[in-house]
């Protein structure tokens, strides 16, 4: 995959994705570890919810240095995932609570998605995360 570069064309980063898990444990809805050899910048996260939670529930997504089982809200903070299905993204969440839009993730660190309030039972869908490598 290409780095951000001083002068370059066509460096469109990498998408990773997976299924959402209906769990109330921190980091269990999904988590991702930066497997690159250096830091990356995560600039897009989309959570495509095709089945909403059975009961009231809000979602956090964000960067953490701690573990895959640590919640964070720096990308999506408190999104209601019980009111409706839909695609919820970091760009829509900017300015809400602690969401800052774009985050730097060092090698081996994490993006996690966690239940913030309520219960995640019934949740189904996919997540999509896009990043670019930072040249050392």
């Amino acid at each position, binding site marked *: 995959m290409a780095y*951000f*570069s*001083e*002068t*370059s*064309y*066509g*460096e*469109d980063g990498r998408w990773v994705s997976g299924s959402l898990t209906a769990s109330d444990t921190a980091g269990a809805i999904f988590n991702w570890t930066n497997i690159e050899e250096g830091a990356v*910048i995560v*600039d897009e996260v989309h959570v495509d919810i095709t089945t909403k939670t059975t009961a009231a529930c809000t979602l956090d997504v964000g960067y953490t240095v701690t573990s895959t089982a640590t919640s964070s809200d720096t990308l999506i903070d408190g999104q209601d995932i019980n009111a409706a299905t839909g695609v919820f993204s*970091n*760009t829509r969440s*900017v*300015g809400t609570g602690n*969401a*800052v*839009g*774009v*985050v*730097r993730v060092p090698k081996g660190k994490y993006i996690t998605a966690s239940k913030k309030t309520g219960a995640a039972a019934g949740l189904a869908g996919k997540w999509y995360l896009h990043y*670019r490598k*930072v*040249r050392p």
Partner: protein
Amino acid sequence: MAYFSETGYGEDGRWISGAIGTTRTGGGMFSWQNPEEGAVVVDKVYLDITTAATSSVCTFDIGYTATSASTSSDTIIDGGDPSTTARVYNHLKDAGTNGVYAARVAKGKWVTASEITGDVTGIVGKYYLHYRKVRP
């Protein structure tokens, strides 16, 4: 490099980047001049600040200007505040009052990043700017 197109895939524009400066005059954090043969739309700007400013007071602006490489502008980021927190400042979270998320930059004109209040001394990091050409 590809143009914006009515129907097209894989047109991912161009990234440029460089070190963030700490010069305290207009355009002193960085300035970029559109080198293409026509106008472009700048649609993403990230400042990956890994060391915050030394001063407890510091804000910066980033934006388009038709005047010069040393003219400040706030049409993309208005009043970003890296005085206490090292993070990825971006056009989404830090648009402020006058930032409008994207900017059209005519051939030969500029995007500049400038100290606005306080003192940018001590900041360390890189900037990343993404643009696409506008079909004439």
